[in-house]
Each structure stands twice: as C-alpha cells, then as structure tokens.
C-alpha cells in the first residue's frame, strides 16, 4: 500500500505552476465536475527558509548549555552543586574509555526493551482480545481496571522481596508499568473504530481476518501510538527508580555509586543520558508513526 507513496505530491515552483494548473483544469473538465476547486491546486506554499527551520529547536538547549558553562566558569554556581558541562563531558569521556559507560547503558537499554516487549506485548494482546471479543472483555476487563489503580512503583518493596535485586525484578516492574497504557489505548482504539466503516467492510464481503487487517487495526493505530508514547515515558521512569533502588549495574546504579563517592559530574551525566535515551525512544516512535500514519491529515503536507 505504501509503495504508492512515491507518486508526485510535491508542490511545483513558479515555472511549473502553469503547467500544473493547466493539467488540473483539463482533468476537471474530463471528470465532469467543473465547479469543484481542487484543493491540491489552490493551496499556496509560503516561502520557506529550509536550513534555519531545522535548527530552531536547538537554539534554546544550546543557549542553556552556554549559560550553564558560563555560570560554572565564573564561579557563580559552585562546582559541588553543579559541575560545568565540560566537566560532565570529561567524566563521560573517561567512563567511555574504561568501558563502564557503554556497559551500563547497554544493561539499562536491554532491561528497558525486554520489559517493554513483555509488558507491551501482553497489554496489546489483552487490548485486542477485549476489544474484539465481548466474552473476553467481560471476563478480564474489570480485573485489569482494578489492578490499574495500584501504582506499580508502590510494588517495589514487594518485588524486592519476591525477586531480590535480580534482573527479573526490574523487568517485572517495567513490564507492569508499560502494560496499562498499551492495553487501555489499544482497547480504546479498537472500540472507537467507525462502526459505519465496519458495516461497509461486511457489506463488501470482508472475512473477519480481512476486516481486522484492513479496517479495525488501521483504525485503532492512532490510538495505539498514543499508548506507545505514554508507555515509553513510563518505561524510563520505572527503570530509573528500579535501578537506583535495587540494582548492581545499569545507569541508575552508576548514578548511585557516583553519589556515594561524591562524583557529582557522573551523577549529572547519568541524568543527561536518561534524558537522551528518553528523547531517542520518543523520536523513534514518532518516526514510526509518521511512516504508518501517512494517510492521516495530521501527518500530511509537512
């Protein structure tokens, strides 16, 4: 379906405009609807400054780093409160050379993804089942809604008792945290698919499988993505808390170790890396969204 993406949708510049609109007129006459003005033809593209556009979001972060550096260098902020960006970068470089940084990032990343896949997978499965089957919904939805009201981080003491500070403790917490946003949004997405479209699919003889693949799933996808983005946020949050409390490796553990030895630059570094990973996950899900929801008016003309 997305193979047809490559068809020309580009706006023409001045010299091409004439040819374009002539074509448009011709097609209007052919189609026998001379009164319709074509939306493609009438939208005017404002002059753009393409290079600057991409840089604008980075101006504020860069300015903050700059002010931060200045404040530290001038001694306005003591380095025991907040180390200068250059010190943080230096600490990062040292940890990178020793291999510690990569190892800890990898451990955290691994926990995050495995926990996410398990919790997200189960949440998605329950969302599908309860969205598609009345029986399944009656059987499990109330129970799940009750469990939802327990803040999953409140389970940490219990989880430590059950699993110790084993890997499974962190995976369990991440999976539990990720489960609900995925479950709820998948369910909501499926329940709110336009019933008229479903009726249309049935009229045109779609089998259950086809109906799911061509109507229900694509219709639920925008909502599923909302759940995905929520879940990614919760995933990092859960992991940070779990790793600072009960772990012997990972970014959170690295930060806690650094705190014991008063290495404030490493603490700040860990926080920044968490932020970066969070941003990365969000960007990845946005890219996926843009790719699969290219039909959606919100993702067109950009």
């Amino acid at each position: 379906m997305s193979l047809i993406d490559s068809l020309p949708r580009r706006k023409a510049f001045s010299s091409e405009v004439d040819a374009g609109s002539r074509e448009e007129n011709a097609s209007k006459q052919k189609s026998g609807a001379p009164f319709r003005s074509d939306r493609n033809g009438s939208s005017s593209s404002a002059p753009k400054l393409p290079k600057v556009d991409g840089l604008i979001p980075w101006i504020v972060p860069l300015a903050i780093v700059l002010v931060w550096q200045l404040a530290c260098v001038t001694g306005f902020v003591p380095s025991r409160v907040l180390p200068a960006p250059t010190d943080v970068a230096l600490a990062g470089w040292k940890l990178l050379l020793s291999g510690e940084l990569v190892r800890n990032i990898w451990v955290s990343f691994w926990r995050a993804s495995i926990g996410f896949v398990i919790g997200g997978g189960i949440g998605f499965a329950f969302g599908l089942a309860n969205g598609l089957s009345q029986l399944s919904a009656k059987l499990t939805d109330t129970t799940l809604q009750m469990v939802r009201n327990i803040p999953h981080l409140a389970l940490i003491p219990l989880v430590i008792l059950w699993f110790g500070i084993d890997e499974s403790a962190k995976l369990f917490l991440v999976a539990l945290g990720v489960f609900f946003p995925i479950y709820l949004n998948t369910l909501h997405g499926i329940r709110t698919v336009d019933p008229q479209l479903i009726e249309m699919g049935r009229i045109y003889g779609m089998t259950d499988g086809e109906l799911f693949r061509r109507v229900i799933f694509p219709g639920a996808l925008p909502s599923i993505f909302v759940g995905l983005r929520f879940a990614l946020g919760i995933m990092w949050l859960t992991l940070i808390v779990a790793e600072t409390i009960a772990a012997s490796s990972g970014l959170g553990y690295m930060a806690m170790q650094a705190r014991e030895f008063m290495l404030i630059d490493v603490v700040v570094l860990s926080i920044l890396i968490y932020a970066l990973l969070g941003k990365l996950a969000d960007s990845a899900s946005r890219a996926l969204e843009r790719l699969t929801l290219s039909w959606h008016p919100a993702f067109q003309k950009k």
Partner: protein
Amino acid sequence: MQEALRFQSVDAEPVDRADIVVQARQLRRGSEGATRGLSLTIRGLRKSFGDNEVLRGIDLHIPSGQFVAIVGRSGCGKSTLLRLVAGLDAPTAGSIAFGETPRAQDVRVMFQEPRLLPWARVLSNVEVGLGRERSSADAQARAERALVEVGLGDKRGQWPSVLSGGQKQRVALARALVSQPRVLAFDEPLGALDALTRISMQQLLERVWRDQGFTAILVTHDVAEAVALADRVLVIEDGRIAQDVTIDLPRPRRRGSAELAALEGEILKHLLEGSEDTQ
C-alpha cells in the same frame, strides 16, 4: 449466451435522442461483461423496532433496470426499506425476492457518507468493492476502469482526506460499481453535497445507470432530484406506499422544465397534506 442477455437489455432501455450514444456505450461495455438489472418483488413487507412499527406492509414490484426514487418525510422508514432490500437487516414479516438469486456482489448500497477507508489510497478503496474477487489478477485494472468511469482516473494514488466531498462520493460510487452490480441502492447519496456538485453528481448517476443497466433504487428527500432522475417515484407515508408516480419524460431531462416542475409540485403537495393530517 451472455451476449444475448446483454442485447436484450439494450432493447429494454427507453429510447430517446441519445439512444445511439447509449447503444454505443452498451456495446463497448458488452465486451467487458456487463450484466442487466435484476427485477425485485416485495410482498407484505413489515419492519418493527420494538413497539415502533416503521414499515406496515409494503407491496412493490420493480422491473429489471428501472430507476425508482423513494421519497417521504424524515423518519418515515426510507432507510429502513433500503437496508432490508440490501439484506443489511432482516424483515419482521413479508418477503423480498429478486428475479434471480443474486450473488453477494450483485446488490450494492451507497450511503450518504462515503465510508471510504482513510488509510487506503483511492484505488485500494475502489478495489474493496470487488468483494471476494479482490485478490484476482485483474482487480487493479477493474478498479482503475471504475475510477475512470466516475472521472477520477487521475486521483488513484491520493489519500481520501485530500478529496472534496463530491470526489469522495464519486470514489464511493466507483467502489459500488466496480463489481458490476445488478441492483444498486442509494441512501441519500447526495444529501451532504452543495447544490452545484449535486447536479453534476445527479448527471453522473444517470449516466452510469444508463451505461450499466442496473436496477436503481434511490432514496432522497429532494423531490426535484427524484423526478429528474427516476422512471418512477414512490412516496412512503405511515409505513406504506402512499403514491406511485410514473415519470414518463424523455431523457436527458432539462432541469427546471415545466413538466418536471408540475410533477414535483404534485408530489410535494401530497407530502405536505400528509404532514398537516398528522399534526
């Protein structure tokens, strides 16, 4: 054998000034496997929703290939009747019989909303109309032909969201036509369009009906539209057919002509009297 059937349908068409063009079109379509419309017989049809008795005994025969318009006040059961004919709901009592047992793709409905899949390109949306034949080798070619038929051949790769209301409705028409149905039921398909788009859509409906020879059942609240397009106008009142008017005017009909206006006035008068009775 199929050929013979098709030529019969040409003969059955009303003859008028443009008959040569129509015959040429029929011949052209002939090689593409067009079929003629199915006749339809409804007997003692009733439909209730709980205590609400909507249809109270409809008896009706629609000959093969006829263009029937159904008018009536809002809530009188027009959509209900159409859904019964299309097999979307089951009647409470009575029967609906077609001249031949229709296959699934022989009866198609078009609604007021285009009901296009927003996540499928225009061409894929039309392919949906092929029903079980969606995966056949010539599916795409057939869908493209149907799009050209409604004048949207150049929009095949667009998303539905960039189309205008009239264009969306034409895609929905192409989707309904692509399986070459023998009965096509329309539930106020032009109700949401502006006046000018409506007129060009009416002309398109009339053209494809003449090209393909299906039996057309058009529900509309616009009496002018009904008399302009149909061979016969049915007025539904109190769950029954209150009036059955034959529109015996040559095609193409000129909008705003005196004959059309007179017929429209007569039907409207009846409708208005009916509403005064009940108030």
